[in-house]
């Protein structure tokens, strides 16, 4: 994939009505974002914090999200899902930042973990009660470390699901078909369980 920044493209619906936003050229800021966009700031911050791992990075990512949202606010259609739209922007901003920080920015990686799927299938041996006991005993640091070890897409789908996103919202935010959300989420949770075995303190 070719890096396209400073242009950002996202899909507003699963049917993908694409909108292009010039960024980060900062013309005079025209504010058209509904005030209700602020209602989602805690949720955005929580997800950003778990995506970046640091409070300061999360603050920057949320600032960046609102900057892009304000710049593109005129293109937000009232009545459509503001929350999914904001999280879509946050995800794209995070991808841009993440790729900028990588040594080789053109390499993918967001689908890598799903491709190298370690999903539990019925053919695998049972993990049994030991895993159940381990999960019951995990602490915050275990979960945060295990989440941080996941690929960005796997982490994002788990965090958004935790924020109460519906399958449709998840599809809108992650830019995938509604029909694949369920299996993606199941795979991500399965990988998290695997990692929690390793990170159990």
């Amino acid at each position, binding site marked *: 994939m070719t890096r396209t920044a400073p242009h950002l493209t996202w899909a507003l619906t699963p049917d993908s009505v694409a909108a292009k936003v010039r960024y980060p050229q900062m013309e005079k800021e025209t504010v058209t974002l509904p005030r209700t966009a602020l209602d989602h700031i805690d949720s955005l911050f929580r997800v950003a*914090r778990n995506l970046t791992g640091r409070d300061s990075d999360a*603050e920057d990512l949320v600032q960046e999200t609102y900057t892009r949202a304000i710049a593109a606010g005129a293109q937000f259609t009232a009545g459509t899902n503001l929350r999914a739209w904001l999280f879509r922007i946050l995800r794209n901003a995070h991808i841009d930042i993440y790729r900028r920080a990588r040594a080789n920015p053109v390499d993918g990686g967001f689908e890598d973990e799903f491709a190298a799927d370690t999903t539990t299938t*019925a053919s695998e041996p049972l993990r049994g009660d030991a895993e159940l006991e381990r999960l019951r005993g995990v602490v915050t640091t275990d979960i945060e470390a295990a989440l941080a070890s996941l690929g960005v897409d796997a982490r994002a789908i788990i965090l958004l699901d935790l924020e109460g996103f519906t399958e449709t919202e998840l599809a809108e935010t992650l830019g995938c078909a509604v029909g694949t959300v369920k299996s993606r989420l199941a795979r991500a*949770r399965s990988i998290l369980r695997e990692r929690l075995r390793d990170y159990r303190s």
Partner: protein
Amino acid sequence: MDCTEERTHLLDRRRGTLEGELRARVDSHLAECEACRREDAVDRALSLALHDRLPRRRAPQALRRSIERRIVGEPSRVSGSIRRTQMALFAAAAFVAAAAAAIVWWKPLGADPMLAEAVNDHLRIVYSDHPVEIESGGIHQVKPWFTGRLDFAPIVAFAGDEEFPLQGGAVAYFVDRKAATFIFKRHLHVITLLVFRSEGLPWPVLATHPLGGARAMLESSRGFQVLMWQKADLGYALVSDVDPADLQALAVKVAGGT
């Protein structure tokens, strides 16, 4: 048997969003398949861990205000690092102002913030739907539960008795740090015991009540009695609306073991 298909529906089933024939098919499969029942239980434990153990953080107030200003049309174009520098300067100025105010208003019994915090923590317990995270099977069940959840070991030897039965424990915050919370009962009254690291807190200068080798301060606030003391590097706060004599009796038992 290949259960892969059924397993993709277990989460929806637990959330009540699986309906009709598919629901019936998964139910039927679970009734027959022990492996999938176990898988369901493990996945449920993952959901609980994510829900209960992952912190529910809130956006910092400064960030909220900054974005709110921009949404309502006040332009702000500072970068994160500049913003943080500004915030640091503002914080420094605020600290100097607060320190000056503290010098003017300081009084020997300057534990009001701790008093208010203790009462607030107690109220959070009282009004919580799930005040205890670990039900009591005795102190030797409650104390180990804190392992891994706190960065200190709460020293509380009193295991509860008929007079003050121990209900359970939970993790709370006291001011800026985690606290082990033990919940006792006295008849129908709830008594909260908070144990936390004591350094860096505005402890009272004049704590007058002798208590198991320590000295405690008994204060009342908003109708609640608060008894606070330090021992070693731990701080203790007992809060309740019981008679002060009852609170002191429990404090003697708790402190006796510390």
